């Protein structure tokens, strides 16, 4: 009995220590975060907290498969030149007018981030915006800031837009459509608020340039440059058509997931492998597989095991009970989850945070099983973690990548200069989400 209790309590402490060390390692990024997560996972097996079988079973392969499949689709689409072409068309359509450049590029970032990986979208959109806007003689700072922030907001809209959504969606069983329908209003209003804020504060820089010949001239030089570069790149229409068709079919598959009765990862994998098959002559399978971000997938897998260790030790259950015991006011609970996840996501990567929160929230929602609005707690977690990710430079992968990319293109965005815009705007978007969730909980 004593030995059993000792083993149980030592297991709890080992799991907790490993989790804290892993989490700290991921936050401070002293080592590559995928390596940290993997080391955490294997430590749990070596210390006997989890058996090897338990560790393997704790990995959510649906998420891993969905992420890998989307990476394949995005890679093939990028290789086809589709994204570059869309960027070029947008730039041309804007006629170099800053008002439209800002509007088109932020909107395409939002839409692209919703249906593809937002980091990829930032990688494609940011360099071209910097070149175009700087050529006009403007500071590209506000454009890049808006694009980074809007990529996180747009990414929050769909199940596949942001890794935390994938985690929650697949764990809880929310469909692709339920994300789109449920989150349309807060996401749309947040985008609107962000655009309105930028246009109001920077009207001087964003207003049309019809009366300024030197700026019109420079923007046309840049557009002509983009045009000849675009013409020089031999894009295969057949290849691009295949990509568009496969992508649309995959999205359709997501939309009709309920009717197809297939896991979302199966739909994505079908789209990805069919696309690989039809473009086999244009792009080698080895190349596509080499472009899959294996370290990201390893990070997810390791994290699942580390959280399973915590779950196994019973810590998460205690945490869940204390959250439920904190208040019996459902509205307050919604706000606590939304703002706490929002606040924490500004400081730490939202993926590990959401991974930990899922089992906790499973228990919490279990206590509210009689409440028809119990699911709102999940939406609070989704909105909080996605929108909170905008709060600081380190809040989300798209921010880190976007700022880094801007720096490479000669635009320095400091932590504080980012914070000056991101913090107030993050609070605004969280207020919008709070109002939306409370209205939903109380009036519908």
């Amino acid at each position, binding site marked *: 009995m004593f030995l059993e209790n000792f083993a149980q309590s030592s297991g709890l402490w080992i799991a907790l220590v490993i989790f804290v060390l892993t989490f700290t390692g991921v936050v401070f990024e002293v080592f590559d975060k995928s390596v940290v997560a993997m080391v955490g996972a294997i430590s749990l097996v070596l210390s006997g907290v989890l058996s090897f079988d338990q560790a393997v079973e704790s990995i959510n392969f649906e998420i891993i498969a969905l992420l890998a499949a989307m990476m394949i689709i995005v890679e093939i689409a990028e290789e086809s030149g589709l994204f570059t072409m869309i960027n070029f068309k947008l730039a041309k359509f804007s*006629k170099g007018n800053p008002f439209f450049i800002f509007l088109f590029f932020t909107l395409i970032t939002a839409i692209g981030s919703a249906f593809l990986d937002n980091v990829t979208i930032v990688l494609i959109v940011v360099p071209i915006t910097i070149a175009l806007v700087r*050529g006009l003689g403007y500071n590209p700072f506000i454009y890049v800031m808006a694009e980074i922030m809007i990529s996180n907001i747009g990414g929050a809209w769909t199940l596949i837009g942001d890794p935390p959504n994938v985690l929650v969606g697949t764990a809880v069983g929310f469909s692709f459509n339920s994300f789109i329908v449920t989150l349309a209003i807060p996401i749309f209003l947040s985008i609107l608020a962000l655009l309105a804020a930028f246009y109001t504060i920077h009207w001087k820089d964003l207003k049309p340039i*019809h*009366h*300024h*010949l*030197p700026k*019109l*001239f*420079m*923007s*046309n*030089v*840049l*557009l*002509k*440059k983009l045009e*000849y*570069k675009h013409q*020089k790149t031999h894009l295969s229409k057949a290849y691009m058509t295949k990509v568009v068709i496969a992508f649309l079919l995959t999205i359709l598959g997501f939309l009709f997931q309920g009717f197809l009765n297939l896991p979302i990862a199966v739909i994505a994998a079908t789209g990805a492998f069919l696309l690989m098959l039809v473009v086999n002559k244009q792009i080698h399978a080895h190349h596509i597989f080499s472009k899959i971000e294996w370290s990201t997938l390893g990070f997810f897998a390791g994290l699942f095991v580390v959280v399973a260790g915590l779950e196994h030790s019973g810590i998460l259950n205690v945490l869940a009970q204390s959250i439920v015991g904190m208040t019996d006011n459902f509205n307050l609970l919604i706000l606590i989850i939304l703002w706490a996840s929002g606040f924490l996501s500004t400081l730490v990567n939202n993926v590990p945070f959401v991974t930990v929160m899922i089992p906790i929230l499973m228990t919490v929602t279990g206590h509210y099983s009689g409440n028809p609005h119990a699911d709102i707690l999940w939406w609070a977690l989704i909105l909080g973690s996605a929108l909170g990710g905008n709060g600081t430079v380190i809040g989300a992968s798209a921010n880190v990548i976007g700022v880094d990319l801007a720096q490479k293109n000669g635009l320095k965005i400091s932590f504080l200069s980012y914070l000056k815009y991101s913090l107030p705007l993050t609070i605004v978007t969280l207020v919008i989400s709070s109002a939306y969730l409370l209205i939903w909980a109380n009036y519908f």
Partner: protein
Amino acid sequence: MSALFRNIEVDLGTHGFCILVLESFAVALDQYRIKTKEQLLQQCTEIFELIQTVKPRYAILIDSFYKILCQVSSEKGSVAEIIESIDQIKKSVQHEMKDLLKAAETIEADGKTVLIYDHSHTVQNALHHLHKKGQRFNVLLAEQDLDKTEDNVEFFHTHKIPFKVVPAYMLSHLEETIDMAFFGAVTFQEGGRFVMDPGSKSIISELKLEGKKIFLFLTTSKFSLWPVKEKNSQIHVKSDIRAHHIMNKIEFERIKFSHDRVSVDLVDCVVTEKGIFKASELKKEFDRQMAQREKVEERIKMKLG
């Protein structure tokens, strides 16, 4: 702006680049919502000043904008009329390239080996033109910056012109096989010097020593008709970071010069749209154009007050 212009010029060649800039200006004028004639003149002058600050200075552009400014300040200065004149200037720029190629037809390259080194669209066009006219020759391509060499390789491959590539520093081993050399230039300056791709000077000197015939292709519109102020040709000095193993980086300063200045006396023939010139003849033509330019400049200054 200098970097942007240089970037486009490398891709399209000087003539192609100048045509692109003129087209852009015409489109900008079309989109421009004019308030007053004075404002139009003031903004055109602003653009002209911008173009004059670009390094290197593009003679064709500066000349073209002189003409445009003349028109804006004249009575025939409506937006539609200016756009029409830009179209005329564009056509004349295109036409002079055709005239240069016609002049190049007199070069006997059939059965010979032609050395090229720099990345000149004019040289590429001249070789292509001679090839189309039935002259069969081999090109020996001396390597320089990878992107420039690759563009030359792509060009000869596309146009089915036989070529071989040799590192520029190994040319001495092949001197005997070379019959003539074709070079291009960015511009021709006061003091009788061509501004050329870096590395050109040493190759031209080497070939001159070996008695090889050196042709240089340049339209007279590319003459720099202004006094040379800078003597230093150094434009780019940048730090490169290159990966050593996987994680370690070595930081070092890599000094790169953008151009060489080469005396016209080292060149045997200069092929222009006005015919083929000897060194002394080219200097005379330059002086004539310089004097003409000074007159135009004074006229514009008077008009602009």
